[in-house]
């Protein structure tokens, strides 16, 4: 397997290119909300460290759904093809936690047969600990409050086909919907205990819907992790990340990682494979 000088240089160049590509991808900043490698406020880095990742639609099909709680959140409306496996898993007994921006949550609810409309941002000046972090309380949620980031309100149309959203948590007793978007209360805007968490019951399966941009995101994970464990009640927690496939670079990056950091086996195996393939190709060319 001795190579000529020129071929060696080609091989070296190819390997360097591969290493550079991997290094570049690893070094690329991961600013994508709800992405398990994002360490920003709305990232899922902390959640990702304590749960398993679902990186492809097929991966979920092979999971024993009865024993899992899926956490699904995305920064925008997601193609239904990425959500269909979740629905199948929920039908098979999984529970689901849903939150994110209105376009994602309202869109997902529509896919589930619930017609909902975005009404406006929810503010509770009396019950805000940090900017846009509102203390909410859950029905039967014990004395521990739920911290939600940037909540909003939705209106839900009457149930069709037996699918109905039940209010489950409220953003304090004196919250208001900022229907005129100026971050101030305007006369006539709804004021009171506004629902920001709902339960959707599909038989004995539960879908927890939070109308907030942040719940188990990095900025609030430490506050709400206890609640997540309560919702999971011993089941395995899966973070659904298959939608990241729409962002190729970030998807490749996620493939190189495990929940606890970069996988050295994966990198070594990939590099060895690359070397073998390259050597074989070069040899073939030489022989030809």
């Amino acid at each position, binding site marked *: 397997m001795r190579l000529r000088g020129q071929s060696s240089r080609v091989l070296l160049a190819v390997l360097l290119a591969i290493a550079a590509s991997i290094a570049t991808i690893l070094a690329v900043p991961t600013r994508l909300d709800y992405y398990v490698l994002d360490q920003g406020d709305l990232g899922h880095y902390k959640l990702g460290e304590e749960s398993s990742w679902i990186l492809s639609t097929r991966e979920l099909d092979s999971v024993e759904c009865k024993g899992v709680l899926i956490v699904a959140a995305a920064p925008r409306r997601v193609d239904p093809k990425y959500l269909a496996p979740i629905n199948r898993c929920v039908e098979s007994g999984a529970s689901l936690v849903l939150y994110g921006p209105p376009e994602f949550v309202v869109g997902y609810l529509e896919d589930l047969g619930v017609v909902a409309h975005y009404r406006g941002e929810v503010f509770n000046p009396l019950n805000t600990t940090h*900017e846009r972090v509102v203390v909410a309380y859950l029905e039967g949620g014990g004395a521990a409050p739920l911290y939600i980031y940037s909540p909003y309100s939705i209106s839900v149309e009457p149930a069709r086909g037996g699918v109905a959203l039940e*209010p489950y948590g409220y953003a304090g007793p004196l919250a208001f919907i900022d229907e005129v978007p100026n971050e*101030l209360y305007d006369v006539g805007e709804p004021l009171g205990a506004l629902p920001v968490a709902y339960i959707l019951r599909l038989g004995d399966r539960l879908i927890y819907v939070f109308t907030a941009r942040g719940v188990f995101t990095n900025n609030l994970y430490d506050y709400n992790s206890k609640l997540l464990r309560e919702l999971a009640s011993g089941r395995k927690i899966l973070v659904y990340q298959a939608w990241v496939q729409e962002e190729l670079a970030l998807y490749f990056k996620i493939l190189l990682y495990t929940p606890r950091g970069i996988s050295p086996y994966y990198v070594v195996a990939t590099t060895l494979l690359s070397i073998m393939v390259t050597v074989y190709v070069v040899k073939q060319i030489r022989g030809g």
Partner: protein
Amino acid sequence: MMTKLAEAWLAIALIVLLAIFREAVAASYTVEDCTYLLAVLEKVVDYALVADSRGLELSRILLEAPTSPRVAQLHRESYLAIISYYDVLSRIPTGGVSFSELYLLTVRLDAISSYARSLQTCSHDPESSYAMRARVELKLLRLKQLILDSMKSIGSDLLEIQVENRVYEPGDYIALNIKAPNGCRLREVSLYHGLRLISGVDLNCTSQDCIAHVKAPTADQVEDVVKVEGTVKFLLQVEAACGEAHVKAYRFISVQYQRPQILLDAPTVVSRGEKVNVAIHSEIGGLRGVLLAKCGVNESVVANFTQLDRSQLIELEVDRPHFTPGYCVLKLCVNATSKTLPHCIERSIMVLPRYPRVSIIALQTHLTATGAFEIAVQTERGLIVRVKGSALAIIAESSGVEEHTYTIFTPLPVVTLDIEVSIEDPRGWYDTYVHEERVVVVNALSLTALIVAGFLAITALRERERVFTIILKTGGVRVSRGLREAVKKAGELIVSFKLGLGSKVAELYYDLVRKLGGRLPEVHETLREHFYVVVEPLVKSELVKRLMRRFMSIVEKDLYSPRRQSVEEAEEIYEGVLSAVERSEQ
């Protein structure tokens, strides 16, 4: 059905979770949205009207909510009043509430009305908030009526008091017809405002039926408690001794108080030293009071009245010490009488200065041989004339009692001089007159000398350019190095002083200001000036502005108060601002 269930659950959950909310409220930011506070107030009053316990719980939460300083006091008083209302409400069924307690509650509830008005004023949409404020006041009336109804049932079963239900004038006699049961002896009638006793009358009735007369408090009697005109409710208390027990019964007495109608008429522009006629008209005669003049910060009495006619003319000499040139205010204050409350009215006048007759003779351009020229100032005797010029002008007074002549000399070849002529009156009769003149002076002698010297210098330096350049360069380098070091040292001193002498909170603040793209404070700038000039225009978001304002006040406290502020809080705001800015950029 679902909504009712949710409401019922909410009522229970509120009580259980009060502790959590109190904690959250304690950590929350100042609530500055007045419209929101008004809406919340209406909601709480709604709950109070139907005795819903949610009103009490919310009041306790709101009591601890930090609000803007301009409404903080009323905010607190209002929610304390509502909490008292609930407290009284809970004790009424057991009979553990006294009449005076209820009466005091009606007085305390007035704070809510003032609070609602303040909130409407500071609302970002006062017009729309008006309806909300009006609704709150109507509901408040209903709330008061509920209390009044409760009062009727207290103490009325033993003593019967008949009093004409009308609004009395101050000083009117109020006729009372009191009936006491057998074995009771009527003792006295007292009149209260709040908890303060205004007057008391002993009853000398021999029978169980008694007719008594109580005088409605005069305006001068209550001037320290009745601050605004209108109807004031007093509490009438009738006391009787029934064996060893003392029985009390109560009624409300309404008395109408008014301010006197007075008018002050004076010219709007007067010159100092002039005598002007000030006309005072009043609806009623015999008022006592004072006329004050306020110029700048000094306020002084210019006239005293012991008996003011209905129409009176006062001759005022607009002069020192009461009046100084500029914007002044004439203030007429009349004391309370038996019928009217004390009252003050104001009128603005502009006092013009009084100047002496002056004539200044000076040319705009002086072409001189030696750089000397003259200006002449003619004015009245006994006045002090001073002439000042730019730094390079030498001024000499050459004559003068009425006509002063000044010789001004400048050695410069061509120069523009600013000459200031001021005329002062040591007697104070005239105000100091100042005149400024800009003149161009050409000094032919020094101009010629300069040209000659220039010519000689050029001749002398010819062939010696290299030496000259080296001298210039080495000298320049030394000077600039020295200057740089001096500036650097001074800069370090100033920066460490301005940036807080090791305050971690201040360091964070300035770091944040830098990140927002702002500069650090100049030497002459205070922290607040820097905030309003530099920081506030940098950010567009109201939330970020509020955060930065809060941050600035923490820094201020950390720097200038004996107590160190929490670095954790500063770090939280720091992070909060950064993330808010980042989001707004996205």
